[in-house]
């Protein structure tokens, strides 16, 4: 039945290159998460704000991020914005695309988390004399982050998986890009992508493990 000869050695010989790619993948994903969380907090505040314009901007962002394919968003970040003469490198485009996506999904999560925090919490803060912003910063936000920690971990995994879409904008240093380049050289599709799959799997497991440890450290209540 199997008249295909596996050449695992060829793939394994390329492991160092692929691991370098994995590092780039992690970098992009982590960075897009960090910026994405910050943006999501801002978007959440915008959506709560009384200003029509701010909440409109935030809502459009969230809805577009959530209702179009990530591939489309990344493609837009490269070829779409370039139609206006703004040029980003593949790395930047990928980062922007994923960050845009992360921020949208996280902002929606944060909004759900906010609903779960009794408004007596903010009230208790306000009645101690904290300003509105202080009450958000010191009382509401930490709880919001905790409630959305699991969704945030999931989003991080998504971010890792989304880096594989970078090839559409010319990215060739991330794990998927490296694998594809190697595939062009050797045509050992199955072996190379199987190795890449294992690396991706391990990365997501490491992230989930790391998140669990982090959660244990951060949320001791």
């Amino acid at each position: 039945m199997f008249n295909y000869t596996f050449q695992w050695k060829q793939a394994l010989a390329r492991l160092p290159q692929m691991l370098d790619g994995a590092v780039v993948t992690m970098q992009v994903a982590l960075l897009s998460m960090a910026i994405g969380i910050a943006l999501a907090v801002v978007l959440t505040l915008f959506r709560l704000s009384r200003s029509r314009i701010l909440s409109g901007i935030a809502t459009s962002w969230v809805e577009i991020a959530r209702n179009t394919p990530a591939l489309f968003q990344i493609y837009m970040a490269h070829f779409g914005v370039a139609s206006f003469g703004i040029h980003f490198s593949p790395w930047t485009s990928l980062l922007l695309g994923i960050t845009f996506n992360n921020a949208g999904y996280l902002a929606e999560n944060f909004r759900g988390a906010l609903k779960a925090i009794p408004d007596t919490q903010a009230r208790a803060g306000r009645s101690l004399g904290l300003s509105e912003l202080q009450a958000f910063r010191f009382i509401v936000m930490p709880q919001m982050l905790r409630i959305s920690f699991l969704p945030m971990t999931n989003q991080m995994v998504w971010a890792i998986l989304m880096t594989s879409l970078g090839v559409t904008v010319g990215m060739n240093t991330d794990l998927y890009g490296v694998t594809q380049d190697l595939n062009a050289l050797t045509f050992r599709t199955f072996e190379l992508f199987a190795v890449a799959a294992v690396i991706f799997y391990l990365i997501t497991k490491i992230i989930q493990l790391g998140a669990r440890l982090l959660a244990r450290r951060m949320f001791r209540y």
Partner: protein
Amino acid sequence: MIEIQNVRKSFGALEVLKGIDLTVHNGEVLTIIGGSGSGKSTLLTCINGLEPIDSGRILVDGTEVHARSTDLNKLRQKIGIVFQQWNAFPHLTVLENVMLAPRKVKGMSKPDAEAMAVKQLEHVGLGDKLSVYPSRLSGGQQQRMAIARALAMSPKYMLFDEVTSALDPMLVGEVLDTLRLLASDGMTMICVTHEMKFAREVSDRVAFFHQGVMAEIAPPAELFGAPKSPDLQKFLAATA
């Protein structure tokens, strides 16, 4: 002195406070009783400016709470308030709960805030729970922590909104003891409560709210001994 002058307040079509007049003198302990929805909690949150009012005035030490020019964050440092529940900030330890406002609002240094917090927590009998998270505390301990947290801002007035009604019967006592302690220290207090025994014992005056109106106000002996309005009579019969 807290002066409440003809305060009216509606939520949408529902008039919750229908012209309340009330003065609380320094050193006085005033208890408010009344049925559910009679506007007791609303009045308290109006006093520290958490809710706007529709008409009338509330003066705290002569400052009009709802005036535009009033710095509410500053005013609130004078007025501690403890709610029925969800008082604890779950992500902070007991000590951090109490230290937060002194540090962020008053800008106290960390050691000063900590000393203050420890003092207040010991005062309410939580000196051994400093680094514990609120989820590990019983409801009664959480409420005492909330009291210590309010006290750490050295407020001149304390408002209590049914601080025992979400508690197990077993835990009510310890919280009421803390309130008694405060009252005997001479703190000016407004307590909304359903604990008639406590009201009778501790209050200088008791006010009975009914459907947004302060139907009766009198020293406890008089109010409980000889209730005038039929509503109050009914209410007392039901809670006996």
